[in-house]
Protein backbone atom coordinates (compact mmCIF):
# COMPACT_ATOMS: atom_id res chain seq x y z
CA UNK A 1 0.00 0.00 0.00
CA UNK A 2 1.11 3.54 -0.76
CA UNK A 3 1.41 5.98 2.12
CA UNK A 4 -1.66 7.95 1.09
CA UNK A 5 -3.67 4.72 0.96
CA UNK A 6 -2.54 3.79 4.46
CA UNK A 7 -3.50 7.22 5.76
CA UNK A 8 -6.89 7.12 4.06
CA UNK A 9 -7.76 3.66 5.37
CA UNK A 10 -6.61 4.56 8.88
CA UNK A 11 -8.80 7.65 8.68
CA UNK A 12 -11.82 5.52 7.80
CA UNK A 13 -10.99 3.08 10.57
CA UNK A 14 -11.29 6.04 12.92
CA UNK A 15 -14.47 7.46 11.33
CA UNK A 16 -16.13 4.07 11.36
CA UNK A 17 -15.23 3.32 14.94
CA UNK A 18 -17.73 3.56 17.77
CA UNK A 19 -18.21 7.12 19.00
CA UNK A 20 -16.29 8.87 16.22
CA UNK A 21 -16.91 12.53 15.51
CA UNK A 22 -19.47 11.95 12.79
CA UNK A 23 -21.79 10.08 15.13
CA UNK A 24 -22.51 6.39 15.35
CA UNK A 25 -25.29 6.57 12.77
CA UNK A 26 -22.97 7.62 9.99
CA UNK A 27 -19.82 6.16 11.53
CA UNK A 28 -20.06 2.92 13.45
CA UNK A 29 -23.37 1.81 11.99
CA UNK A 30 -22.62 2.82 8.40
CA UNK A 31 -18.91 3.17 7.65
CA UNK A 32 -18.18 0.50 10.24
CA UNK A 33 -20.29 -2.24 8.66
CA UNK A 34 -18.19 -4.77 6.71
CA UNK A 35 -20.37 -4.35 3.62
CA UNK A 36 -19.67 -0.62 3.44
CA UNK A 37 -16.10 -0.84 4.72
CA UNK A 38 -15.14 -3.28 2.01
CA UNK A 39 -16.42 -0.92 -0.66
CA UNK A 40 -14.42 1.94 0.83
CA UNK A 41 -11.22 -0.11 1.01
CA UNK A 42 -11.84 -1.36 -2.49
CA UNK A 43 -12.13 2.18 -3.84
CA UNK A 44 -8.99 3.30 -1.99
CA UNK A 45 -6.91 0.34 -3.13
CA UNK A 46 -8.45 0.31 -6.60
CA UNK A 47 -9.90 -3.21 -6.50
CA UNK A 48 -13.59 -2.99 -5.65
CA UNK A 49 -14.39 -6.45 -6.93
CA UNK A 50 -11.95 -8.35 -4.69
CA UNK A 51 -12.91 -6.10 -1.80
CA UNK A 52 -16.57 -6.99 -2.17
CA UNK A 53 -15.79 -10.68 -2.56
CA UNK A 54 -14.22 -10.73 0.89
CA UNK A 55 -16.52 -8.08 2.37
CA UNK A 56 -19.70 -10.04 1.84
CA UNK A 57 -18.69 -13.11 3.90
CA UNK A 58 -17.25 -10.87 6.61
CA UNK A 59 -20.59 -9.05 6.79
CA UNK A 60 -22.48 -12.32 7.11
CA UNK A 61 -20.10 -13.52 9.82
CA UNK A 62 -20.46 -10.36 11.89
CA UNK A 63 -24.18 -9.80 11.32
CA UNK A 64 -25.19 -10.17 14.95
CA UNK A 65 -22.89 -7.49 16.31
CA UNK A 66 -24.47 -5.39 19.06
CA UNK A 67 -22.70 -3.34 21.72
CA UNK A 68 -25.09 -2.84 24.59
CA UNK A 69 -23.98 -0.74 27.53
CA UNK A 70 -20.59 0.05 26.05
CA UNK A 71 -19.71 -3.61 25.73
CA UNK A 72 -17.77 -3.47 22.47
CA UNK A 73 -16.84 -7.10 22.22
CA UNK A 74 -15.40 -6.83 18.81
CA UNK A 75 -14.32 -3.79 16.89
CA UNK A 76 -16.15 -4.24 13.63
CA UNK A 77 -14.64 -1.21 11.96
CA UNK A 78 -11.08 -2.19 12.69
CA UNK A 79 -11.81 -5.79 11.85
CA UNK A 80 -13.12 -5.15 8.39
CA UNK A 81 -10.85 -2.40 7.22
CA UNK A 82 -7.76 -4.35 8.23
CA UNK A 83 -9.26 -7.63 7.08
CA UNK A 84 -10.16 -6.42 3.60
CA UNK A 85 -6.91 -4.52 3.17
CA UNK A 86 -4.96 -7.62 4.20
CA UNK A 87 -6.84 -9.79 1.78
CA UNK A 88 -6.14 -7.46 -1.12
CA UNK A 89 -2.48 -6.90 -0.27
CA UNK A 90 -1.57 -10.51 0.40
CA UNK A 91 -4.18 -12.19 -1.72
CA UNK A 92 -2.62 -11.67 -5.13
CA UNK A 93 -2.68 -14.92 -7.00
CA UNK A 94 -4.80 -16.77 -4.45
CA UNK A 95 -8.18 -18.32 -5.17
CA UNK A 96 -11.41 -16.99 -3.72
CA UNK A 97 -11.63 -19.31 -0.73
CA UNK A 98 -8.04 -18.59 0.27
CA UNK A 99 -8.56 -14.85 -0.08
CA UNK A 100 -11.59 -15.00 2.16
CA UNK A 101 -9.62 -17.08 4.66
CA UNK A 102 -6.94 -14.38 4.67
CA UNK A 103 -9.59 -11.72 5.25
CA UNK A 104 -10.95 -13.62 8.25
CA UNK A 105 -7.47 -13.86 9.77
CA UNK A 106 -6.63 -10.21 9.28
CA UNK A 107 -10.07 -9.23 10.49
CA UNK A 108 -9.31 -11.28 13.59
CA UNK A 109 -6.07 -9.41 14.18
CA UNK A 110 -7.68 -6.06 13.42
CA UNK A 111 -10.70 -6.73 15.58
CA UNK A 112 -8.50 -7.65 18.49
CA UNK A 113 -6.37 -4.54 18.18
CA UNK A 114 -9.53 -2.47 17.87
CA UNK A 115 -11.07 -4.09 20.90
CA UNK A 116 -7.99 -3.29 22.96
CA UNK A 117 -7.93 0.30 21.74
CA UNK A 118 -11.58 0.71 22.59
CA UNK A 119 -10.83 -0.28 26.15
CA UNK A 120 -7.87 2.09 26.22
CA UNK A 121 -9.98 5.01 25.08
CA UNK A 122 -12.79 3.97 27.40
CA UNK A 123 -10.35 4.32 30.29
CA UNK A 124 -8.59 7.39 28.93
CA UNK A 125 -11.87 9.26 28.74
CA UNK A 126 -12.49 8.99 32.45
CA UNK A 127 -10.61 12.16 33.49
CA UNK A 128 -12.76 14.20 31.13
CA UNK A 129 -15.49 14.03 33.71
CA UNK A 130 -13.35 16.27 35.93
CA UNK A 131 -13.07 18.84 33.17
CA UNK A 132 -16.77 18.73 32.43
CA UNK A 133 -17.50 19.12 36.09
CA UNK A 134 -15.39 22.22 36.35
CA UNK A 135 -17.26 23.92 33.54
CA UNK A 136 -20.62 22.75 34.87
CA UNK A 137 -19.91 24.17 38.31
CA UNK A 138 -19.71 27.63 36.86
CA UNK A 139 -22.54 27.15 34.35
CA UNK A 140 -20.35 27.39 31.28
CA UNK A 141 -22.87 25.96 28.82
CA UNK A 142 -20.86 27.18 25.86
CA UNK A 143 -17.84 25.14 26.90
CA UNK A 144 -19.41 21.71 27.32
CA UNK A 145 -18.15 20.77 23.87
CA UNK A 146 -14.57 20.98 25.07
CA UNK A 147 -14.49 17.85 27.23
CA UNK A 148 -17.02 15.97 25.12
CA UNK A 149 -15.98 16.71 21.55
CA UNK A 150 -12.54 18.28 21.55
CA UNK A 151 -10.88 16.20 24.24
CA UNK A 152 -12.98 13.05 23.75
CA UNK A 153 -12.20 12.96 20.08
CA UNK A 154 -8.51 13.74 20.45
CA UNK A 155 -8.28 10.62 22.52
CA UNK A 156 -10.56 8.71 20.17
CA UNK A 157 -8.58 9.75 17.13
CA UNK A 158 -5.28 8.90 18.73
CA UNK A 159 -6.50 5.48 19.81
CA UNK A 160 -7.73 4.52 16.35
CA UNK A 161 -5.72 6.35 13.77
CA UNK A 162 -2.23 5.70 15.14
CA UNK A 163 -2.54 1.96 15.78
CA UNK A 164 -4.22 1.56 12.41
CA UNK A 165 -1.28 3.30 10.75
CA UNK A 166 1.11 0.96 12.55
CA UNK A 167 -0.80 -2.19 11.64
CA UNK A 168 -1.22 -1.18 8.02
CA UNK A 169 2.41 -0.18 7.66
CA UNK A 170 3.58 -3.49 9.13
CA UNK A 171 1.32 -5.29 6.73
CA UNK A 172 2.77 -3.41 3.82
CA UNK A 173 6.26 -4.26 5.01
CA UNK A 174 5.40 -7.90 5.55
CA UNK A 175 3.79 -8.23 2.15
CA UNK A 176 7.25 -8.32 0.61
CA UNK A 177 7.31 -11.83 2.00
CA UNK A 178 5.16 -13.23 -0.77
CA UNK A 179 4.37 -16.68 0.67
CA UNK A 180 2.68 -15.15 3.70
CA UNK A 181 -0.63 -16.83 3.00
CA UNK A 182 1.03 -20.20 3.28
CA UNK A 183 2.26 -19.38 6.78
CA UNK A 184 -1.19 -18.98 8.30
CA UNK A 185 -2.32 -22.40 9.44
CA UNK A 186 -5.83 -23.49 8.52
CA UNK A 187 -6.86 -23.91 12.12
CA UNK A 188 -6.40 -20.23 12.79
CA UNK A 189 -9.00 -19.37 10.18
CA UNK A 190 -11.30 -22.09 11.48
CA UNK A 191 -10.92 -21.01 15.09
CA UNK A 192 -11.59 -17.39 14.23
CA UNK A 193 -14.70 -18.39 12.31
CA UNK A 194 -15.95 -20.39 15.28
CA UNK A 195 -15.10 -17.51 17.58
CA UNK A 196 -16.95 -15.01 15.38
CA UNK A 197 -20.11 -17.07 15.43
CA UNK A 198 -20.00 -17.45 19.20
CA UNK A 199 -19.29 -13.78 19.84
CA UNK A 200 -22.81 -12.82 18.81
CA UNK A 201 -23.93 -14.44 22.06
CA UNK A 202 -22.22 -11.67 24.01
CA UNK A 203 -24.42 -8.94 22.62
CA UNK A 204 -27.54 -11.05 23.03
CA UNK A 205 -26.68 -12.05 26.59
CA UNK A 206 -26.17 -8.45 27.63
CA UNK A 207 -29.40 -7.23 26.00
CA UNK A 208 -31.16 -10.06 27.81
CA UNK A 209 -29.92 -8.75 31.12
CA UNK A 210 -31.97 -5.61 30.49
CA UNK A 211 -35.03 -7.41 29.26
CA UNK A 212 -35.39 -10.43 31.53
CA UNK A 213 -37.16 -8.86 34.49
CA UNK A 214 -39.29 -11.78 35.61
CA UNK A 215 -38.63 -15.48 35.54
CA UNK A 216 -41.34 -16.28 33.05
CA UNK A 217 -39.88 -13.78 30.61
CA UNK A 218 -37.54 -16.52 29.53
CA UNK A 219 -40.37 -18.25 27.72
CA UNK A 220 -41.16 -15.14 25.68
CA UNK A 221 -37.53 -15.16 24.64
CA UNK A 222 -37.89 -18.83 23.80
CA UNK A 223 -40.99 -18.08 21.75
CA UNK A 224 -38.93 -15.86 19.49
CA UNK A 225 -36.26 -18.53 19.37
CA UNK A 226 -38.56 -21.33 18.25
CA UNK A 227 -40.25 -19.11 15.67
CA UNK A 228 -36.89 -19.25 13.92
CA UNK A 229 -35.94 -22.85 14.64
CA UNK A 230 -39.27 -24.67 14.45
CA UNK A 231 -41.30 -22.35 12.21
CA UNK A 232 -38.37 -21.37 9.98
CA UNK A 233 -39.17 -17.66 10.06
CA UNK A 234 -36.65 -14.99 9.15
CA UNK A 235 -35.66 -12.25 11.58
CA UNK A 236 -37.87 -9.85 9.68
CA UNK A 237 -40.84 -12.18 9.89
CA UNK A 238 -40.37 -12.61 13.61
CA UNK A 239 -40.18 -8.84 13.99
CA UNK A 240 -43.55 -8.51 12.26
CA UNK A 241 -45.07 -11.27 14.35
CA UNK A 242 -43.62 -9.66 17.47
CA UNK A 243 -45.10 -6.29 16.62
CA UNK A 244 -48.52 -7.84 16.05
CA UNK A 245 -48.25 -9.70 19.35
CA UNK A 246 -47.08 -6.63 21.22
CA UNK A 247 -49.94 -4.47 19.97
CA UNK A 248 -52.51 -7.11 20.88
CA UNK A 249 -50.85 -7.51 24.26
CA UNK A 250 -51.01 -3.77 24.85
CA UNK A 251 -54.68 -3.59 23.89
CA UNK A 252 -55.55 -6.61 26.03
CA UNK A 253 -53.73 -5.38 29.12
CA UNK A 254 -55.19 -1.88 28.74
CA UNK A 255 -58.70 -3.34 28.48
CA UNK A 256 -58.29 -5.59 31.48
CA UNK A 257 -56.90 -2.72 33.53
CA UNK A 258 -59.84 -0.56 32.58
CA UNK A 259 -62.28 -3.25 33.67
CA UNK A 260 -60.39 -3.85 36.89
CA UNK A 261 -60.60 -0.14 37.76
CA UNK A 262 -64.29 0.18 36.94
Amino acid sequence: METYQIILIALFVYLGSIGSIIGNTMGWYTLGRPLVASLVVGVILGDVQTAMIVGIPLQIMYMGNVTPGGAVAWDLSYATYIGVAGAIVFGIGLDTAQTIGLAVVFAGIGGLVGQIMWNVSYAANLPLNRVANKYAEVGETKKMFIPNVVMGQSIGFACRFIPAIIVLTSMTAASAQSDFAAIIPGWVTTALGVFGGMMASLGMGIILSFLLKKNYHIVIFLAGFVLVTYFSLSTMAVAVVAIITAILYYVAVSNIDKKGVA
Partner: protein
Amino acid sequence: MTKKISEKTLKKSFWNWFLWHGCSQQAESMLGMAFAQSMAPVIDELYDNKEEKAEALKRHITLFNTEPQVGSICNGVVCGLEEANANKACTPELISSVKVALIGPTSAIGDSLWVATFIPILLTICLSISQASPVTSWLGPVLYMIVYPLGTGILSWNLFKLGYKSGIEGMQGFMSTGKLNTLTDTMTVLGLIVVGALTASFVTASVPFRIVRDVFDATQGIILENQVIFEADIMLDSIFPKILPLFLTLGVYYLYSKRKWSPLKLMGLILIIAGVFTFVGYVTGFYV
Protein backbone atom coordinates in the same frame (compact mmCIF):
# COMPACT_ATOMS: atom_id res chain seq x y z
CA MET B 1 -44.01 35.30 30.72
CA THR B 2 -43.97 31.62 29.78
CA LYS B 3 -40.63 30.41 28.53
CA LYS B 4 -40.44 28.39 25.36
CA ILE B 5 -37.54 26.70 23.62
CA SER B 6 -37.13 28.05 20.11
CA GLU B 7 -37.13 25.72 17.14
CA LYS B 8 -33.56 26.71 16.39
CA THR B 9 -32.36 25.73 19.85
CA LEU B 10 -34.15 22.40 19.67
CA LYS B 11 -32.38 21.65 16.42
CA LYS B 12 -29.07 22.64 17.93
CA SER B 13 -29.70 20.32 20.87
CA PHE B 14 -30.60 17.48 18.53
CA TRP B 15 -27.52 17.86 16.35
CA ASN B 16 -25.23 18.08 19.38
CA TRP B 17 -26.61 14.72 20.36
CA PHE B 18 -26.91 13.07 16.97
CA LEU B 19 -23.28 13.75 16.02
CA TRP B 20 -21.50 13.71 19.34
CA HIS B 21 -23.35 11.30 21.61
CA GLY B 22 -20.46 8.85 21.62
CA CYS B 23 -17.48 11.16 21.72
CA SER B 24 -16.57 10.88 25.39
CA GLN B 25 -18.12 7.59 26.38
CA GLN B 26 -16.59 6.02 29.50
CA ALA B 27 -17.56 3.89 32.45
CA GLU B 28 -18.18 6.73 34.91
CA SER B 29 -20.94 8.80 33.37
CA MET B 30 -21.35 6.81 30.12
CA LEU B 31 -22.92 9.31 27.74
CA GLY B 32 -23.30 11.94 30.51
CA MET B 33 -21.08 14.61 29.04
CA ALA B 34 -22.65 14.18 25.64
CA PHE B 35 -26.07 14.57 27.17
CA ALA B 36 -25.00 17.72 28.94
CA GLN B 37 -23.65 19.13 25.70
CA SER B 38 -26.96 18.33 24.04
CA MET B 39 -28.78 20.18 26.81
CA ALA B 40 -26.36 23.14 26.86
CA PRO B 41 -28.14 25.32 24.27
CA VAL B 42 -31.51 24.58 25.88
CA ILE B 43 -30.23 25.51 29.33
CA ASP B 44 -28.72 28.64 27.89
CA GLU B 45 -32.04 29.74 26.50
CA LEU B 46 -34.25 28.80 29.42
CA TYR B 47 -32.32 30.02 32.41
CA ASP B 48 -31.10 33.50 33.08
CA ASN B 49 -28.37 33.43 35.68
CA LYS B 50 -25.19 31.41 36.09
CA GLU B 51 -26.48 29.64 39.20
CA GLU B 52 -29.47 28.14 37.46
CA LYS B 53 -27.37 27.17 34.48
CA ALA B 54 -24.77 25.56 36.70
CA GLU B 55 -27.38 23.58 38.52
CA ALA B 56 -28.96 22.39 35.30
CA LEU B 57 -25.63 21.44 33.76
CA LYS B 58 -24.60 19.55 36.86
CA ARG B 59 -27.69 17.39 36.80
CA HIS B 60 -27.01 16.46 33.18
CA ILE B 61 -23.35 15.50 33.33
CA THR B 62 -24.27 12.65 35.66
CA LEU B 63 -24.58 9.11 34.43
CA PHE B 64 -26.77 8.63 31.42
CA ASN B 65 -26.96 5.95 28.79
CA THR B 66 -29.22 4.85 26.00
CA GLU B 67 -29.11 3.48 22.49
CA PRO B 68 -28.45 6.95 21.11
CA GLN B 69 -30.40 6.80 17.86
CA VAL B 70 -33.72 5.66 19.21
CA GLY B 71 -32.87 7.18 22.58
CA SER B 72 -33.02 10.74 21.23
CA ILE B 73 -36.58 10.61 22.52
CA CYS B 74 -35.04 10.99 25.99
CA ASN B 75 -33.37 14.25 24.99
CA GLY B 76 -36.69 15.45 23.65
CA VAL B 77 -38.51 14.54 26.85
CA VAL B 78 -35.89 16.26 28.97
CA CYS B 79 -36.13 19.41 26.83
CA GLY B 80 -39.83 19.45 27.58
CA LEU B 81 -39.22 18.91 31.27
CA GLU B 82 -36.57 21.61 31.47
CA GLU B 83 -38.96 24.02 29.80
CA ALA B 84 -41.61 23.15 32.36
CA ASN B 85 -39.08 23.53 35.14
CA ALA B 86 -38.10 26.97 33.91
CA ASN B 87 -41.81 27.79 34.11
CA LYS B 88 -42.02 26.31 37.63
CA ALA B 89 -44.24 23.46 36.40
CA CYS B 90 -41.75 20.71 37.13
CA THR B 91 -38.98 20.00 39.63
CA PRO B 92 -35.32 19.07 39.11
CA GLU B 93 -35.95 15.87 41.03
CA LEU B 94 -38.66 14.80 38.59
CA ILE B 95 -36.36 15.57 35.67
CA SER B 96 -33.61 13.38 37.09
CA SER B 97 -35.87 10.52 37.97
CA VAL B 98 -37.59 10.51 34.59
CA LYS B 99 -34.20 10.55 32.90
CA VAL B 100 -32.98 7.59 34.91
CA ALA B 101 -36.24 5.73 34.34
CA LEU B 102 -35.80 6.07 30.59
CA ILE B 103 -32.31 4.54 30.49
CA GLY B 104 -33.48 0.93 30.72
CA PRO B 105 -36.32 0.76 28.21
CA THR B 106 -34.74 2.99 25.56
CA SER B 107 -31.43 1.13 25.72
CA ALA B 108 -33.02 -2.26 25.46
CA ILE B 109 -35.52 -1.35 22.78
CA GLY B 110 -33.01 0.60 20.74
CA ASP B 111 -30.40 -2.14 20.84
CA SER B 112 -32.76 -4.99 20.16
CA LEU B 113 -35.14 -3.44 17.66
CA TRP B 114 -33.00 -0.94 15.81
CA VAL B 115 -29.41 -2.09 16.04
CA ALA B 116 -29.97 -5.81 16.20
CA THR B 117 -33.06 -6.14 14.00
CA PHE B 118 -33.40 -3.29 11.57
CA ILE B 119 -29.73 -3.12 10.64
CA PRO B 120 -29.37 -6.84 9.86
CA ILE B 121 -32.55 -6.81 7.80
CA LEU B 122 -31.40 -3.82 5.77
CA LEU B 123 -27.97 -5.38 5.40
CA THR B 124 -29.48 -8.64 4.23
CA ILE B 125 -31.40 -6.87 1.51
CA CYS B 126 -28.34 -4.92 0.41
CA LEU B 127 -26.22 -8.07 0.56
CA SER B 128 -28.54 -9.89 -1.78
CA ILE B 129 -28.36 -6.97 -4.19
CA SER B 130 -24.57 -7.14 -4.04
CA GLN B 131 -24.57 -10.87 -4.57
CA ALA B 132 -26.76 -10.65 -7.67
CA SER B 133 -23.85 -9.81 -9.95
CA PRO B 134 -20.17 -9.02 -9.33
CA VAL B 135 -20.33 -6.00 -11.64
CA THR B 136 -22.97 -4.31 -9.60
CA SER B 137 -21.84 -5.46 -6.19
CA TRP B 138 -21.15 -1.83 -5.23
CA LEU B 139 -24.90 -1.17 -5.44
CA GLY B 140 -25.56 -2.88 -2.11
CA PRO B 141 -23.25 -0.78 0.09
CA VAL B 142 -24.20 2.41 -1.73
CA LEU B 143 -27.86 1.75 -1.08
CA TYR B 144 -27.10 1.05 2.56
CA MET B 145 -25.06 4.23 2.90
CA ILE B 146 -28.02 6.24 1.71
CA VAL B 147 -30.95 4.46 3.32
CA TYR B 148 -29.53 3.78 6.75
CA PRO B 149 -28.24 7.20 7.82
CA LEU B 150 -31.13 9.04 6.21
CA GLY B 151 -33.79 6.79 7.66
CA THR B 152 -32.21 6.73 11.08
CA GLY B 153 -31.72 10.48 11.09
CA ILE B 154 -35.36 11.11 10.27
CA LEU B 155 -36.50 8.62 12.88
CA SER B 156 -34.21 10.06 15.49
CA TRP B 157 -35.35 13.64 14.90
CA ASN B 158 -38.99 12.67 14.97
CA LEU B 159 -38.58 10.75 18.19
CA PHE B 160 -36.80 13.80 19.63
CA LYS B 161 -39.73 16.04 18.67
CA LEU B 162 -42.24 13.48 19.91
CA GLY B 163 -40.50 13.38 23.26
CA TYR B 164 -40.45 17.15 23.48
CA LYS B 165 -44.13 17.49 22.64
CA SER B 166 -45.47 14.85 24.99
CA GLY B 167 -43.14 16.38 27.56
CA ILE B 168 -44.32 16.78 31.10
CA GLU B 169 -48.06 16.26 30.63
CA GLY B 170 -47.42 13.25 28.51
CA MET B 171 -45.12 11.73 31.09
CA GLN B 172 -47.40 12.51 34.00
CA GLY B 173 -50.54 11.33 32.25
CA PHE B 174 -48.70 8.17 31.38
CA MET B 175 -47.33 7.57 34.80
CA SER B 176 -50.51 8.18 36.75
CA THR B 177 -52.69 5.85 34.67
CA GLY B 178 -50.11 3.13 34.72
CA LYS B 179 -49.81 3.39 30.97
CA LEU B 180 -46.04 3.70 31.18
CA ASN B 181 -45.87 0.34 32.87
CA THR B 182 -48.06 -1.22 30.24
CA LEU B 183 -46.00 0.34 27.48
CA THR B 184 -42.74 -0.80 29.05
CA ASP B 185 -44.14 -4.29 29.48
CA THR B 186 -45.26 -4.30 25.87
CA MET B 187 -41.86 -3.16 24.70
CA THR B 188 -40.26 -5.86 26.80
CA VAL B 189 -42.45 -8.49 25.15
CA LEU B 190 -41.50 -7.12 21.75
CA GLY B 191 -37.81 -7.00 22.62
CA LEU B 192 -37.73 -10.48 24.10
CA ILE B 193 -39.34 -12.12 21.09
CA VAL B 194 -36.97 -10.33 18.76
CA VAL B 195 -33.87 -11.13 20.81
CA GLY B 196 -34.97 -14.76 20.89
CA ALA B 197 -35.13 -14.74 17.11
CA LEU B 198 -31.79 -12.97 16.83
CA THR B 199 -30.12 -15.52 19.06
CA ALA B 200 -31.44 -18.33 16.91
CA SER B 201 -30.46 -16.52 13.72
CA PHE B 202 -27.05 -15.09 14.45
CA VAL B 203 -25.36 -17.00 17.22
CA THR B 204 -23.69 -20.07 15.80
CA ALA B 205 -21.99 -22.82 17.72
CA SER B 206 -21.60 -26.48 17.04
CA VAL B 207 -19.96 -29.38 18.82
CA PRO B 208 -17.39 -30.50 16.29
CA PHE B 209 -17.47 -34.05 17.55
CA ARG B 210 -17.80 -36.93 15.19
CA ILE B 211 -17.03 -40.62 15.27
CA VAL B 212 -15.73 -42.00 12.02
CA ARG B 213 -15.09 -45.70 11.53
CA ASP B 214 -14.89 -48.40 8.90
CA VAL B 215 -18.01 -50.50 9.13
CA PHE B 216 -18.88 -53.90 7.78
CA ASP B 217 -22.10 -53.95 5.80
CA ALA B 218 -23.54 -57.41 6.41
CA THR B 219 -26.27 -57.13 3.79
CA GLN B 220 -23.76 -56.50 1.04
CA GLY B 221 -20.81 -58.26 2.64
CA ILE B 222 -18.41 -55.38 2.10
CA ILE B 223 -16.48 -52.97 4.27
CA LEU B 224 -17.54 -49.33 4.00
CA GLU B 225 -14.67 -47.00 4.85
CA ASN B 226 -14.78 -43.84 6.93
CA GLN B 227 -18.45 -43.88 7.81
CA VAL B 228 -19.67 -41.15 10.16
CA ILE B 229 -21.41 -43.20 12.82
CA PHE B 230 -21.95 -40.43 15.30
CA GLU B 231 -22.26 -36.71 14.83
CA ALA B 232 -22.83 -34.75 18.04
CA ASP B 233 -24.38 -31.75 16.32
CA ILE B 234 -27.01 -33.71 14.46
CA MET B 235 -28.00 -35.50 17.64
CA LEU B 236 -28.20 -32.31 19.66
CA ASP B 237 -30.22 -30.60 16.96
CA SER B 238 -32.63 -33.50 16.81
CA ILE B 239 -33.33 -32.95 20.50
CA PHE B 240 -33.66 -29.19 20.24
CA PRO B 241 -32.48 -27.30 17.21
CA LYS B 242 -29.75 -24.74 17.94
CA ILE B 243 -29.60 -25.84 21.55
CA LEU B 244 -25.92 -24.90 21.78
CA PRO B 245 -26.30 -21.26 20.73
CA LEU B 246 -29.22 -21.09 23.16
CA PHE B 247 -27.23 -22.33 26.11
CA LEU B 248 -24.21 -20.28 25.17
CA THR B 249 -26.34 -17.14 25.17
CA LEU B 250 -28.11 -18.01 28.39
CA GLY B 251 -24.74 -18.82 29.93
CA VAL B 252 -23.34 -15.45 28.92
CA TYR B 253 -26.48 -13.80 30.26
CA TYR B 254 -26.09 -15.62 33.55
CA LEU B 255 -22.42 -14.76 33.99
CA TYR B 256 -22.97 -11.14 33.03
CA SER B 257 -26.15 -10.55 34.92
CA LYS B 258 -25.85 -12.73 38.02
CA ARG B 259 -22.09 -13.21 38.39
CA LYS B 260 -21.24 -9.69 37.22
CA TRP B 261 -18.57 -10.80 34.78
CA SER B 262 -17.23 -8.02 32.57
CA PRO B 263 -17.71 -8.23 28.79
CA LEU B 264 -13.94 -8.49 28.43
CA LYS B 265 -13.80 -11.53 30.68
CA LEU B 266 -16.70 -13.05 28.80
CA MET B 267 -14.90 -12.44 25.54
CA GLY B 268 -11.92 -14.29 26.92
CA LEU B 269 -14.12 -17.20 27.93
CA ILE B 270 -15.67 -17.38 24.49
CA LEU B 271 -12.22 -17.29 22.92
CA ILE B 272 -11.17 -20.23 25.05
CA ILE B 273 -14.30 -22.21 24.22
CA ALA B 274 -13.82 -21.50 20.54
CA GLY B 275 -10.23 -22.69 20.81
CA VAL B 276 -11.15 -25.89 22.59
CA PHE B 277 -13.96 -26.63 20.17
CA THR B 278 -11.67 -26.07 17.21
CA PHE B 279 -9.11 -28.37 18.77
CA VAL B 280 -11.64 -31.12 19.37
CA GLY B 281 -12.93 -30.64 15.85
CA TYR B 282 -9.49 -31.29 14.39
CA VAL B 283 -8.85 -34.26 16.65
CA THR B 284 -12.13 -36.01 15.80
CA GLY B 285 -11.87 -35.30 12.11
CA PHE B 286 -14.72 -32.79 12.02
CA TYR B 287 -12.40 -30.24 10.49
CA VAL B 288 -9.70 -31.37 8.07
